[in-house]
């Protein structure tokens, strides 16, 4: 009788294990790019240069604010209308002309920019605000613990700052990254571009963020970076402390 129960128990255990292996083994890790507020794709402290109005030769420089991406548009960029009369009943334009950032240049620069932070410092500032802060367009008026983040993410930041590490093709870069305790994604859902525009896109997670590397055709290294948060359980008591 006891043997019979043991056999049943073992069979049940084996069946559950097989199901778990199948479920876990078949799951695909997909990174979704997120809104402009969630994704870090440019140094937020750098001024950008553009024409004042459509067709104008006059140029202006400005640092972007969150207002730029609201549905009604902003004073900073032109709106587009349908050529024929619009039948819309609300006040929204057909489209807003807003910057679509192509990603932070790699290797990640530590050189400070005029009136701003280096790309590395600004990325650290973004990471320190945490995965729920929505500060991809404009930095917050307060800040997180940049020093702790600098320490925690040092290995990845150093990797991103090394042209050598980012070269040599996907297999070599994956091999180098594997020593940093990262998780690789199986797929990327990029809300900005068709991925076929790139020779390769490689995404890996470290701590609370995904880092997505882009390689252009005929380039021998990954040359652009986008960072998006990984949102799991929101409550995180250690993250609420000053140390």
């Amino acid at each position: 009788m006891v043997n019979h129960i043991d056999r049943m128990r073992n069979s049940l255990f084996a069946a559950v294990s097989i199901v778990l292996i199948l479920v876990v083994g078949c799951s695909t890790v997909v990174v979704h790019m997120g809104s402009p507020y969630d994704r870090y794709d440019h140094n937020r402290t750098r001024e950008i240069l553009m024409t004042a109005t459509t067709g104008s030769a006059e140029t202006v420089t400005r640092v972007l604010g969150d207002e730029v991406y609201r549905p009604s548009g902003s004073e900073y960029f032109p709106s587009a209308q349908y050529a024929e009369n619009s039948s819309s009943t609300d006040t929204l334009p057909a489209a807003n002309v807003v910057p679509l950032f192509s990603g932070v240049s790699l290797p990640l620069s530590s050189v400070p920019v005029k009136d701003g932070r280096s790309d590395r410092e600004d990325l650290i500032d973004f990471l320190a605000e945490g995965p729920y802060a929505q500060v991809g367009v404009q930095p917050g008026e307060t800040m997180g613990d940049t020093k702790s983040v600098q320490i925690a993410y040092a290995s990845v930041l150093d990797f991103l700052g090394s042209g050598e590490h980012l070269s040599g093709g996907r297999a070599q870069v994956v091999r180098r990254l594997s020593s940093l305790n990262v998780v690789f994604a199986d797929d990327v859902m990029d809300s900005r571009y068709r991925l076929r525009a790139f020779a390769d896109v490689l995404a890996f997670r470290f701590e609370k963020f995904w880092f997505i590397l882009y390689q252009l055709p005929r380039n021998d290294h990954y040359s652009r970076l986008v960072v998006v948060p990984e949102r799991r359980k929101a409550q995180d008591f250690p993250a609420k402390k000053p140390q």
Partner: protein
Amino acid sequence: MPINPHDEIVSSLLEILGPLRGEIRLLGRVSDPVIGNPSEREVFFLIPDLHILSPKRRQRFKYGFNHNESRLLAGLLERIATLRNSWETSRNRKLVTVQLGDFFDLWREFSGSAKPAEIPDDAYGDLRDILYRGVDRGGPCLKATMLLGNHDTKRSDPLKEIPFRYKFFSRPQDEKPFLFGTHGDAFDTLETTLPDAVEEFAVYFIGTFVEPNKYPIMEWSRKTAGINKSIGNLGKAITDPDHNLEAHGGAIQVSPEKSLPPFVCQEIPSPDDTANPYFQKLYRSIAIAKEKDLPGQYVRVVTMGHTHKASLILCRPIRERPMLLMDVGAWIENCTYPLAESGVVVTEPSAQLGVIHGNDARIYQIRLTQAA
């Protein structure tokens, strides 16, 4: 004498309060270099726990955000947003607004998992707009730093529309922030040991049986007395419903340019000389930041919510670093304190705000003297 930012804030608030027969009372103040703020540019405007609920849920719990009907807080914040814009235009000041967590009470809002789509767009739409949503809708907005409180999540999921932070530091020029803010739950033994699901269950199902202004200060145990999520010791909660604030010398009525005493606070010689358990834990936490050489080591002022009991505690130990704990209170439940001019003790809805400019930190109670 030039009007200072504190006076400008007070003037702005009184513009809204005047027609409502309202006034501002000083619950706490420290005006001293001990605060350690090297900048005169930023004005920190601190909003404590609100615990807002959609109207349907509010009716069920008979509990919640004070001065709801008069839209008092939204009116005050709209006026402050105008002041913020004028400062931005003149480029001489910067208003930095922080909501210290427990903004939307998801524990009470949803019995099961959170369903944000069920919250009507206009449920406290004015507060959501003025604090963080207006920027997307083309309206006035304070672009507040919103801290994640324990009630801001349901089964660990927060409302996606809110840009939450776990904590904040002031942005210094020299990487030495004088100010740190956290909701406070990370230093609450109860919060960090009991699973969320148990606490949420208790609040949702037992919270409705308790009178609204008494429920939150029930005790789980002697150790956690005063914490707002307990289900034990109902009797004491019912007989002791209000937060008794230590307004030293009575709460002075505040008006622009009125002379105020520089110290209205509890002063302690060492961090162990207070019954406030948060003070000791925060002080220790900053000591750890120093051991790790982190920015937290430079913090002189810690601001928090969570307890719903406003207090200002200044510790100036000999040969050790000082710390000011600024618990900004709440806009739920009641508070009790004496008026400075008469000594009369009043009990009224908690409605507190904190303001820091330069080396002057204050906690105000907003009161309506008669029903408007």
